[in-house]
């Protein structure tokens, strides 16, 4: 059987009161988020991909077939790594031996990630001789991630790795996850019900509900859909990748350039020129003007084109999709404003962005 690049996952299984039926084709690199409420089947899907749960279907990763209709490769023969929601470190082994557990079982020729690298990436130097029982939740999860990537997998599956942690530990781990995403050329499938984690980490998103895929696509495009498949309601908005181009220390501002324009953002100490950042612009923070007004308080004025106008949650409001360059934005306006301004698709307008947040 020949299978192309990318990750293909088609599964069907049924339990009392629950049915999983998905047919996905995901990119073979970057972070894909499986997103949805608890009980929507995202963890079940992840377990099926790993082979931890048997389900009829097929699974292939960048041309390597793991499961098809006639044969299923057992979990321990699949080049994958899995990070569980709760701690899964072996309590009878030290951190070092936990890390070595998978590493030793990986054939030498396949070891792309070395102990020193993983220890350094995840900041584990001072933990090596401790027992897992004495670590904090955040430390345990960092060790678990290290242990997982030390098998040099072809696919990293993460089942809500941050869900069991408090806010401070989440903040502590996030930068490690980001740096892994950027330094490992490894596809990651990340299960989460947290919109904030998805916004920060994901490149591609799969929204699930009741065992089915509701919406799927690249993060930016999917978040900018006017039908809002993610049900973010008040928090509807877009994510854009930008680069810091200019610092304005007098005003504590920084200019971030994206494909299609630039935005002034509030500066902070950690920002530096050339840094890649993710910005979030909420639909409720975007308004529209027909002319460029310079006599008003909003700093960010961006020329854009109206792409689509759709009814929003209530009949009184409308969701307007705008495009600046290649980057989509959403604006939530009252239906009356849409009427008064005579907004039509293809019309050129000025977008006024009241606030921009750096995603973290």
């Amino acid at each position, binding site marked *: 059987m020949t299978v192309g690049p990318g990750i293909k996952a088609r599964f069907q299984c049924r339990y009392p009161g629950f049915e999983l039926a998905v047919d996905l084709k995901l990119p073979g690199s970057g972070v894909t988020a499986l997103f949805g409420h608890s009980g929507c089947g995202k963890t079940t899907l992840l377990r099926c991909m790993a082979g931890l749960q048997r389900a009829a279907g097929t699974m292939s990763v960048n041309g390597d077939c793991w499961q098809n209709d006639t044969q299923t490769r057992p979990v*321990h023969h699949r080049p994958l790594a899995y990070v569980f929601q709760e701690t899964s470190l072996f309590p009878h082994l030290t951190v070092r031996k936990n890390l070595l557990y998978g590493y030793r079982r990986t054939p030498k020729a396949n070891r792309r990630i070395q102990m020193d690298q993983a220890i350094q990436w995840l900041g584990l130097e001072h933990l090596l001789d401790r027992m897992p029982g004495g670590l904090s939740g955040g430390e345990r999860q960092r060790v678990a991630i290290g242990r997982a990537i030390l098998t040099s997998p072809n696919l990293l*599956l993460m089942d809500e790795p941050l869900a069991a942690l408090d806010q401070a530990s989440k903040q502590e781990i996030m930068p490690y996850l980001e740096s892994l995403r950027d330094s490992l050329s490894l596809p990651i499938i990340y299960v989460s019900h947290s919109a904030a984690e998805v916004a920060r980490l994901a490149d591609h998103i799969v929204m699930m509900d009741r065992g089915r895929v509701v919406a799927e696509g690249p993060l930016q495009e999917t978040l900018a859909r006017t039908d809002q498949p993610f049900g973010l309601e008040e928090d509807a908005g877009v994510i854009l990748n930008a680069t810091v181009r200019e610092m304005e220390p007098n005003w504590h501002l920084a200019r971030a350039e994206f494909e299609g324009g630039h935005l002034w953002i509030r500066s902070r100490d950690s920002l530096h020129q050339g840094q890649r950042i993710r910005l979030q612009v909420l639909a409720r923070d975007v308004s529209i003007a027909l002319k460029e007004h310079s006599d008003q308080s909003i700093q960010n004025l961006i020329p854009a084109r109206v792409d689509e106008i759709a009814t929003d949650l209530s009949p009184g409001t409308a969701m307007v999709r705008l495009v600046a360059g290649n980057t989509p934005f959403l604006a939530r306006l009252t239906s009356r404003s849409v009427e008064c301004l005579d907004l039509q698709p293809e019309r050129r307008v000025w977008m006024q962005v009241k606030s921009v947040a750096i995603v973290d």
Partner: protein
Amino acid sequence: MLLLLVGTPIAWWLARSKHWIRQPVAAIVALPLVLPPTVLGFYLLVLLGPNGPIGSAMDSLGLTLLPFTFEGLVIASMIYSLPFTVQPLQNAFQNVHHRYLEAAATLSASPIDQFFSVVVPMARAGFLSAAVLTFAHTVGEFGVVLMIGGNIPGETKVLSVAIYDHVESLEYVQAHWLSAGMIAFSFLVLVTLYSINGRIGAGALK
């Protein structure tokens, strides 16, 4: 030792299997707990004896008959003490959360590898108590041994039976020697096992 070898797979299967046959098998393994030892000894004698199905099969194969031999005695004690091995092991295995096995599987450990690298170390307290209980029970048993061993001096005479003989023939001095010896020996073995267990337990918590 032999019992640990036999009991471990049975206990593992009992702890993990969801098959309907699990319950009947568990009941059979536990039977020696309920039955008087003489019942067990009697049926073993019948089964293994020259007219029993196993006994006649062995006879026709030219093997020595098991009753009243040391081998027969060992087999009988094993069956009799099996529940004392299986129960603590089964409990210990059930306490090893399946997530650890799944984690090991995702780290490329085969099922056998998982068993020895994860289950055995995590269930070592279970192994120790299985060893203690089995040892205690085997040393102290009487009925089965008498039935199948036949109390042949130098061959199938065990301590507990020897003591019984001494008491029967009113040789209290010898009976004292053997009994006190057994108490001291058993105490030593148990103390050793418990202190090993305590040390491992403390080490794991550090």
